[in-house]
C-alpha cells in the first residue's frame, strides 16, 4: 500500500462524503423553483419564506425544547454510567452496559415502534413532545456515554486518592478534582446529544403525535416540489448548526484531553 496514492483516495473519499452537503447552500441561494442546473441567480427569498412559515417556527421550537431537555437528561445519565463503568468493578457490569449501549446498533425504528406501543397500548398516554424526549434520551445516551467514558478513563485514579489524602471528602473530591477535569467531556457529550436529537427523524416520526419537529416537518414537505427550495434553505441552516455544535464539542473534547495531559488519539468514539 503506497501512502501517496492512498492520500489521493482519501481526499476523493472526503469529497464524496461532502459533495451532497455542498449542494444545500448552492440551491438554497438559487433563484429557481426546481433543483436543477443551470443555476438561475442569487436570492435569499427561500430563507425569508422559511422565516415566515408558522408551522416551521412551531417545529423549530419543538425541536429545540426536545433537544435541550433530552440532551440534558442523556448527559446526566451518561455521567452516572460512564463514572460507574470506568471507576468501579461490579458483577454484571458488561450486561448492564450492553443494554444501555444497545441503541447504538439497533435500528432506530425498533426504539420508535416499541415506545409507541408502550405509550399507546400499555400506558395509554397521548403522544407529545414529552414522549419524543423520552425516546431521544435512549438514543443519544450511548453516544454521550462513549464521549464521557474517554473523559473519565483518562482521569488518573491517584488524583482522587491524592485529594482524599490531603483531607478532602469523597464529595468534595468529586467537586474539586473530578468535575473540573471531565467538564470538557460533559459539554462535548451534551452538544453531541443535542445534535443527535435535533436531527433525529424516525423516533420523532413515531412518537410526536401531531406535533411537528424539524425533521418530521421536512419529511412531510418533501412530497411537495414547490416546498423543496425552502427545505434546502432549512437544511442549510440545520447542517450549519450541526457543524457549529460539533466544532464546539470537538474544541471542548480536545481541551479536556490537553487538560488531563493525555495524548490526543482523536475522535468521538
Amino acid at each position, binding site marked *: 500500500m503506497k501512502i501517496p496514492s492512498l492520500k489521493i483516495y482519501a481526499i476523493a473519499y472526503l469529497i464524496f*462524503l461532502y459533495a451532497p452537503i455542498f449542494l444545500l447552500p448552492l440551491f438554497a441561494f438559487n433563484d429557481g423553483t426546481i433543483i436543477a442546473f443551470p443555476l438561475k441567480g442569487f436570492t435569499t427569498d427561500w430563507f425569508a419564506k422559511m422565516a415566515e412559515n408558522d408551522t416551521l417556527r412551531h417545529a423549530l421550537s419543538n425541536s429545540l425544547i426536545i433537544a435541550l431537555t433530552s440532551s440534558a437528561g442523556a448527559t446526566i445519565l451518561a455521567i452516572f454510567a460512564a463514572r460507574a463503568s470506568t471507576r468501579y468493578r461490579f458483577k454484571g457490569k458488561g450486561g448492564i452496559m450492553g443494554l444501555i449501549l444497545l441503541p447504538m446498533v439497533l435500528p432506530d425504528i425498533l426504539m420508535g415502534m416499541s415506545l409507541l406501543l408502550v405509550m399507546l397500548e400499555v400506558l395509554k398516554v397521548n403522544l407529545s413532545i414529552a414522549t419524543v424526549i423520552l425516546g431521544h434520551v435512549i438514543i443519544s445516551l450511548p453516544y454521550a456515554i462513549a464521549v464521557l467514558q474517554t473523559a473519565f478513563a483518562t482521569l488518573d485514579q491517584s488524583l482522587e486518592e491524592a485529594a482524599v489524602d490531603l483531607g478532602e471528602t469523597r464529595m468534595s473530591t468529586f467537586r474539586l478534582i473530578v468535575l473540573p477535569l471531565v467538564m470538557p467531556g460533559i459539554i462535548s457529550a451534551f452538544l453531541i446529544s443535542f445534535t443527535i436529537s435535533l436531527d433525529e427523524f424516525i423516533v420523532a416520526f413515531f412518537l410526536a403525535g401531531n406535533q411537528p419537529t424539524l425533521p418530521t416537518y421536512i419529511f412531510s414537505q418533501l412530497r411537495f416540489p414547490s416546498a*423543496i427550495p425552502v427545505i434546502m434553505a432549512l437544511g442549510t441552516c440545520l447542517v450549519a448548526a450541526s457543524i457549529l455544535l460539533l466544532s464546539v464539542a470537538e474544541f471542548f473534547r480536545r481541551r479536556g484531553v490537553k487538560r488531563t495531559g493525555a495524548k490526543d488519539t482523536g475522535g468521538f468514539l
Partner: protein
Amino acid sequence: MAGKGESWLRSESAQGYALISPPFLYAVLLLAAPLVTILAYSFFQDGYLTVVHEFTLQNYIATWTDPIFRVILVRSLFVAGLVTLITVALAFPIAYYLSFGLAPNQKARWIFLITIPFWTSYLIRVFLWKVILGYNGVINSALESIGIIGPNGLIADPLQMLNSVGAIALTLAHAYAPFAILPIFVSLEKIDRSLLEAGQDLGESRWRTFLRVTLPLAMPGVVAATLIVFIPTVGDYVTPELIGGGKMPMVANLIQAQMLPLDNRPMGSAIAVSSLLVVAALSLVFLWLNRRFLKVGK
C-alpha cells in the same frame, strides 16, 4: 501492583451499583420493557380497534406465509449486504490511511472531518440523493446543460436512476460510510508498529506484511464495522421511502405501515421480531464463520 483496584471506599461494588442504577433503570423502563412489549404483542391478536390479549401464533404464521414479506425481507437483507460490502471495502483504505499515513497530530482533524457527516441530519443527506439522482435532478440537468443528454446528445432521455435497488444502496452506502471507518481505524491504531517492522525485518515484503500481520490484526475492527453497518441498514426506513419512491419497500417500511396507518400492532410486532431474529441469526453465523476462519488462518 496488586491492590490498586480496591479502594478505601466501603464496598466498591455497592457504589458501582448505586451509580449505574439511574441509567440502568432508564434503559430497563424505556428500552428493555418496550422491546419485551413488542415480543408480547407479536403473540396477541388484532381485533377491530382493540387488541385481544390472547396468545396466538397467527401473526407469525401470517408473516411467514406472506410472499410479500419474504420478498421484502430478502430485498432488505440483499440491500444491507451490498451496502455493507461497499462501505467496508471503501472504508478500509481510509482507515488505513488515517492510522498509518498521518502524523499523530493530524489524526484528530481528519477524524473530525469524517465524523461531521456522520452526525449531521441523516434525513437531509438522504433527501439530497433524491435531488441528485432525480429525473429532473442535479445529474440529469447538469448533463443536459452541457449537451450530453438531449436530442443531439449522446443520450436521448434523462437517466432513470431513482426507484432502484442500486440507488437505495448508493444512498445508504454514503450515509453509513463513517460508521465503517471508525471501528477499523480503532483496531488499526491498536496494532503495535514494531510488529510491522518485525514482519519486514523477517524478510516479508510490505504487501505480504500487510496480508499476514496488519489484516488479521484489523479483523476485529472489520467485523465490528460489518455489524454496525449491516444491522441498522436492514432496518432503514427513510432511504427506501425517499429514494425507492415507496415502490421498493424494505422491512422498516412494512413495519411502519402496520404500526401507524394500518393500526395492526400485533402484526407489526411479529414482523419486527421475525426480522430481528433473522438479522440476529445472520450476525451470529457471521461471527461464528469469522472465528472459525481466523482460527484456521493461524
